[in-house]
């Protein structure tokens, strides 16, 4: 076998020599992909103005028909509301109410009857309210659209809030709560919340055993009565239908919904200041792989810097295999399966999200990997990126654009989420041009502005003792000394786990 192997190597190098010195055989196949030429394709961003309409009651609506598609219609109503509206001490109320819109029955149908109706007509229907927004949806065969629409309206406006299903919903939330510290991924998510935003930020107002126990059916009904207002809804429909017929149907159903005296236009989702402090924060969890995130304040999508930041991050860690963090940490060093960086979006386009670089590696290489990641971020601030990197990043954003609108339901949801996040129509339409204008100098400028590494909050979850010791044999260096190697005076803080039922730190 070895002989065979060596032989194949020799013949392989021979082939390589021939191909490099002799012109390719007459296969018509060029020897490099750059030599291929491509016809241009004309792709226009789907036109939001064409899709936008307003229902008789003032709710916004987007219609994206697919005349040649499958005989399916998807209706989605984005709900403006969510956990941020939960009264203090009633955390979890929106979550319970949102779920019950689907599971709790309607005034005319018990939960079991509703389940049977929906499942017999092969509808797919969901309802939920998250921290900042929610949705209720219905996907039906085109032939069933009238029934589907009627059921959707009934679920939304006349929920039964069945007692048994209410209890079951609470039980499920408590059970999920008990799992909060089981998985290092979930520990990381919780702890990041508290590390970067204050305790009373809506995203950190987690449900607790006490808050769930205190929620009554009356609370649920009151929260619902407040939410159901035409201005709290963005309707979008995609699939095989006729546009004017659909508009007519909508106006005779959802469009007839008028605000009751208890309904209230939801307030804006509150802002939460970034409070991350520089340093290394360690959460001890006995698993054999450490999870690392490097955090900084981010950028608003409406910012003039956004296109440059987008390209910059694509080069740093957002561009998959071609980005620097992946090349270094995964490909060169074999330290992690997933690595990368992201500028997270915020609820509204005029607000800043966060910057986050992340990877997971075996406990002993956490310190070394963190050093490598920090060095890559630092490098973005000190040197221009190469022309090649710039071109690859721009190409991936500009030419990859059509794939973001691969089917009609994605287009419909892009439209309604655009409205929810207050994104101007021109934003998407001009993004490719704005990306195209980004220069290497722009990238250096935004890297220096946004990647202020000395201010980074680094969260590490894993076996604290082994992570601190580091890779003594191959890459010595303790985790607590990582900051010093960059000249940063970073404190090292051990963060306690939080009690899963109270979310209070466990001493």
């Amino acid at each position, binding site marked *: 076998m070895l002989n065979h192997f060596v032989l194949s190597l020799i013949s392989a*190098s021979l082939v390589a020599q021939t191909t490099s010195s002799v012109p390719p055989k007459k296969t018509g196949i060029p020897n490099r992909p750059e030599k291929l030429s491509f016809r241009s394709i004309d792709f226009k961003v789907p036109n939001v103005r064409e899709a936008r309409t307003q229902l008789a009651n003032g709710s916004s609506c987007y219609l994206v028909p697919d005349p040649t598609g499958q005989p399916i219609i998807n209706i989605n109503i984005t709900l403006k509301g969510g956990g941020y509206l939960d009264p203090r001490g009633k955390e979890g109320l929106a979550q319970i109410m949102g779920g019950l819109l689907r599971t709790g029955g309607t005034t005319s149908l018990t939960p079991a009857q509703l389940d049977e109706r929906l499942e017999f007509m092969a509808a797919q229907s969901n309802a939920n309210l998250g921290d900042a927004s929610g949705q209720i949806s219905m996907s039906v065969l085109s032939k069933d659209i009238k029934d589907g629409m009627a059921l959707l309206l009934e679920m939304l406006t006349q929920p039964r809030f069945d007692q048994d299903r209410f209890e079951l919903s609470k039980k499920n939330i408590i059970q999920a709560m008990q799992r909060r510290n089981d998985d290092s991924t979930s520990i990381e998510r919780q702890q990041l919340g508290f590390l970067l935003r204050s305790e009373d930020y809506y995203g950190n107002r987690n449900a607790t055993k006490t808050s769930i126990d205190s929620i009554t059916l009356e609370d649920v009904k009151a929260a619902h009565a407040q939410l159901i207002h035409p201005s709290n809804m963005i309707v979008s429909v995609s699939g095989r239908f006729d546009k004017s017929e659909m508009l007519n149907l909508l106006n005779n159903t959802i469009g007839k919904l008028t605000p009751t005296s208890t309904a209230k236009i939801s307030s804006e989702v509150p802002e939460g200041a970034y409070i991350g402090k520089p340093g290394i924060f360690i959460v001890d969890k006995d698993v054999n792989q450490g999870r690392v995130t490097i955090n900084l304040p981010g950028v608003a999508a409406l910012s003039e810097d956004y296109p440059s930041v987008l390209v910059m991050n694509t080069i740093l860690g957002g561009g998959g295999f071609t980005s620097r963090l992946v090349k270094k940490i995964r490909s060169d060093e074999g330290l992690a399966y997933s690595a990368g960086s992201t500028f997270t979006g915020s609820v509204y386009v005029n607000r800043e999200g966060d910057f986050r670089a992340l990877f*997971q590696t075996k406990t002993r290489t956490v310190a070394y990997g963190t050093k490598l990641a920090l060095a890559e971020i630092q490098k973005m601030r000190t040197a221009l990126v190469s022309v090649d990197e710039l071109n690859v990043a721009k190409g991936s954003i500009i030419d990859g654009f059509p794939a973001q609108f691969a089917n009609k339901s994605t287009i419909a949801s892009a439209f309604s989420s655009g409205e929810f996040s207050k994104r101007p129509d021109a934003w998407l339409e001009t993004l490719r041009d704005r990306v195209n204008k980004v220069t290497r100098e722009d990238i250096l400028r935004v890297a220096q502005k946004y990647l202020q590494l000395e201010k980074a909050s680094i969260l590490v979850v894993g076996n604290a003792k082994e992570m601190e010791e580091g890779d003594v044999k191959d890459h010595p260096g303790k985790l607590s000394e990582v900051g010093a190697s960059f000249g940063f005076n970073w404190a090292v803080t051990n963060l306690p786990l939080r009690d899963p039922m109270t979310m209070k730190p466990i001493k």
Partner: protein
Amino acid sequence: MPNSRIKLLSLLIAASALLVGQSSANLPVKEHVLSNGMKVLFVQRNDQPTIAAGWIARVGSANERPGITGLAHLFEHMMFKGSKTIGTKDIKRDLQLNDLQDQLRNEIRREDSMLRAKQLRGEIADMTDPKNRSERHQKLMVEFEKLVKEQQDLLVKDEFSKVYTQAGGTGLNAFTNSDVTCYVQTVPSNKLELWAWMESDRLYNPVFREFYKERDVVFEERRLRTESTPTGKFGELFESIVWEAHPYHWPVVGWGSDLASITREQALEFFNTYYAPNNLTAVLVGDVNESEVVPMLEKYFGRIPRNPKGVPEVVTLEPKQIAEKRMVAEAETTPSVEIAWKSVALGHKDMYALDLLASVLNGRSGRLYKNIVLEKKLATNLRAGGESRKYGGVFTVQGTVSGEHKPEEVEQAIYQEIEKIKSAGISEQELQKVKNQIQADSFRRLDNNYFLMVQLAVADAITGYKEFIEAPSKYEKVTVADIQRVANDYFSKENRNVAIYNRKASAKPVDPELAAFPDQIRSMIASQMNRLSKITDLAQLKTIVGQMEAQAAQVPAEMKGAIDYLRKKIETQIQELSKKENK
């Protein structure tokens, strides 16, 4: 990027278990076989300027053997490392460096053998811990790193991905399961020739550089998905309990010890055996043009020589299971139960009835939810699934336990539901409901070119794509009698495997009041609590409280909190006991 591979895998198993398509009239799949035996399927849909493009190899972890488990998947990673043209500035030196690295690795393997022997004798705990390396071993590792570094300096780093990324290719990825390995992405429709160039190049001229670094990456993937998650390692164990003889016994990602020992030479041999065109199918869905596709693929892929020997067949058949098997795990998770009955391979005539039976059990109006979640309130969540693979399958039911109930109670409740179907069958209404769902889902799945491409590829590699096309009519023919028959044929006690998950004692949510004590005192409290919890005699408990009160004055200050805490706990215990006695 070979990301989210195994997650996608489970999705695919689910998708392929329900081989639902439209009638062939509505799904115009064109088929063509290239001169070298490579099969091409395409579906023309010109409404978006993109093409979902992929190819699949009929090879997976079932084609491995002990010692090289994980190779099919590791190999999939290697396919992104370039070719003689893509990925390096100096192919001659690059190949020499591969050779030199292999030689050095042979030396390192000798060191590994010695470490393995030491571990077997109990002299060291873990042969992969660098602290156990000999001086020579460490020197070899340093030298090896030097060669890696030299090679890296010559690389055009990840050029394979770069070419696609710059051209607007998205979702470049691959996945491996027990039966197939599939390489997928979406390209702008003007870049089809680039896809043909790149994919045929990596099949025609591959170079497996950076092999050992990638092996480390895969090991991190194993840690990420299996070892560091609450149930991953137990799931792996359960699979190996279910499958005794068949290669489904080992995990797709491979056993840790095998993964750490696979060589580049083995990967090369694997490629030569399984990646010949006569073992591959390409699938294109989207903005393609028939007259353009066939000559283009013949031109690019047609140059790859076929393997006249074909691939070795997987001949092991899983023996009929003759006794129930049980696993009881203590895990950091909500208590739950999983039952897996051995069922049938993909395309087996009984698969369709078993799939429909799973649907009858599932859903909010299904039997499991209605009877066990809502009525008996034993579980919060239940799910049945027919999981058929190329060489066999299981029918599973999983349930998450509610409140203080025991997994075994949920297990019994599941058996009761199964028994009802065995003896009384299901209603026509129930059957019609799940047939309606299958019909609607068959439309929904076609909405997405990417998923259609993946489903066609997987179906073709396992059963031939025609099974996929004909599936809806086969589901349509299933009767209530068929469902009752398969329930009786497959759901016997000796044919089942059961996994019980209890919450690990130390992972019980901590009482914050208890957590506030220093470590030493906390462990003292814990051992006392353990002792006390076994006392069921009310009088005895009351005596203990009395003694505690009497001695309260002599308790040292630092222990006072602990004693108070214990007293409170005993009082609660007393209350609960007296409540019970009063009943």
